[in-house]
């Protein structure tokens, strides 16, 4: 994967910064759980069209940051703006219609549903179902369902999961589940995708597939991507910029090479991983 993907990432697509304002902006955000300071005074700016990686050792607050951006819970302090809009107090169920989609670290698919239904549910923010039209179904509801189905089928095609569309997700291996979850996030037509460890627990082949999909989503579908990843090889290959967290504080930010060379990062986290990468 390395040479090819690195070339593409290097030549990347940091194109769409016409207005100079960052697409996603996190300002002075803090969050505590009980007495534990999970995040303190985090600043983060992500440009449109970027692939941004967030790295850090376990417990650094990466997932907390993603959860704050996707409004799973509110920050104690600070402000989050997205596409020029303050989303700090947006209700959780509105975040998808704002344009933010996400996946979860420990695959949060709806296990009792088929792949198809999971993706259809991903389009929920774009639907306005009424109780009576749904219960009667024939006519209006059916017409809309077919329209949504056509869009979902396009994503199923794109992610190469046509063969499993009617399988219950509980019956799928982890690699495919992660891909289905990516599809579910895409189905809501977000402009920003938050991926929480999209490659955790995958083998090399599955990782290569996932990297390819992330690139395609970024370039062909023009989605901005923020991802958490532990595989340093992948992070260095695919991201244009990297932000490193440790103990809830941002300790470094820059291109992959800059971050890799940063002494604070090496001390906190990359010491062993950098050696592994050079091996």
């Amino acid at each position, binding site marked *: 994967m390395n040479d090819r993907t690195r070339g593409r990432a290097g030549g990347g697509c940091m194109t769409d910064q016409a207005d100079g304002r960052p697409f996603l902006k996190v300002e002075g955000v803090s969050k505590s759980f009980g007495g534990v300071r999970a995040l303190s005074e985090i600043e983060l700016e992500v440009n449109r069209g970027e692939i941004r990686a967030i790295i850090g050792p376990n417990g650094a607050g990466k997932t907390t940051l993603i959860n704050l951006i996707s409004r799973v819970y509110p920050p104690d302090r600070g402000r989050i703006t997205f596409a020029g809009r303050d989303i700090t107090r947006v209700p959780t169920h509105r975040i998808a219609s704002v344009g933010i989609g996400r996946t979860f670290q420990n695959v949060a*698919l*709806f*296990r009792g*549903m088929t792949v198809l239904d999971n993706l259809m549910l991903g389009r*929920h923010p774009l639907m306005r179902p009424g109780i009576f039209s*749904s219960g009667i*179904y024939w006519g209006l509801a059916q017409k809309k369902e077919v329209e949504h189905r056509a869009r979902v089928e396009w994503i199923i095609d794109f992610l190469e999961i046509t063969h499993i569309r009617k399988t219950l997700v509980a019956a799928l291996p982890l690699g495919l589940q992660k891909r289905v979850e990516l599809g579910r996030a895409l189905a809501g037509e977000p402009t920003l995708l938050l991926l929480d460890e999209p490659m955790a627990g995958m083998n090399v082949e599955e990782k290569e597939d996932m990297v390819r999909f992330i690139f395609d989503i970024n370039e062909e579908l023009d989605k901005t991507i923020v991802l958490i990843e532990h595989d340093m090889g992948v992070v260095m290959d695919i991201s244009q910029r990297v932000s490193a967290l440790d103990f809830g504080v941002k300790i470094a930010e820059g291109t992959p090479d800059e971050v890799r060379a940063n002494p604070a990062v090496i001390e906190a986290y990359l010491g062993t991983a950098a050696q592994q990468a050079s091996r």
Partner: protein
Amino acid sequence: MVNRECGVFFSTYAADMRLFPLPLTRWTMVGIAGLGFVVFPLVASDYFLNIANLVCIAAVGAIGLNLLVGYTGQISVGHGAFIAAGAYAGALVVTRAGLPFWIALPFGGLMAAVVGAFFGIPSLRIKGLYLAIATLAAQFIIEWLIIHIEWISGGAESTVTVPKAAIGPWVLDTLLEQYFLNLIVLSLAIVFAMNLVRSPIGRAFIAIRDRDVAAEVIGVNLFRYKLLAFAVSSFYAGVTGILYALYLGAANYEQFDIATSIDFLAMIIIGGLGSILGSVFGAFFITVLPMALRVAVDGAVTAALFLFPAANISHVVQSMTAVKLILFGGLIIVFLIVEPEGLNKLWRNIKDYFRVWPYSY
């Protein structure tokens, strides 16, 4: 038998998303409808018509409860009370306002839906056993209100006598006519529920059951959909209540106590959680099993008396009520051990066996 997909291909999404995509299944459904609407009424005696009526009425409520518990994953132990709310609301509309039953049916359902949605509010904060206790409170509060507010209960007996359903001058007072009424309502209830669960609303219900946090981030408004689930479920319960009142000729709170709530929970657990068909199976099982046991036990006693006329077994005869209850409980346990996912799973196993029959390797 009814889901052999082999050789059936779809060229449009609409065809793929039909309620019964396979022609064979559609014909089976036509056959089942024919049995229920034509054959059974022709051959059944009053005894069996009575049973069928009770099964139909119970099945409506069981489907409603399954939408809430099986599909949305919210527990309600107050369903007896929601049934009572519908029964009294419908009964009062018929007796006081003199409106016909076909207005009382949706009205009672709506009243129950309002009550159910109100008592569903705790579900926004609590889940599982805690929610069960909160809805248990609904059971006692509503019962208390019905008994103590004379405007509702109409006096000391707390019984509202309801005239038989009538369409214009045509009074549905035979078992057969009531059977058709109940069967039609049940059919509508089944179709509505099956459509609902394959619609965006049904998907949202299942999403809340499977992963509520993920559902919310994806855009499902938990507040709206949990209350909607309680409302729809209670609407079904309310309709069941009015059907009971019309059938039995009275609305009485004693029919809708905590034991009713437990019975309905038993129906959907034995029938299969998250299955419309299973709810009907469960309603059938829980309604018919006690009757079957009564016939069996009484038959055994008669046989014993006939064989040993000299034996003094009066004390045995007296304890037969307890024996029936023990058998009832025991059979439920046996069923759940044999098939924890309910009768619907048994039916699915049978279908899956015949799916590729006779080449099932």
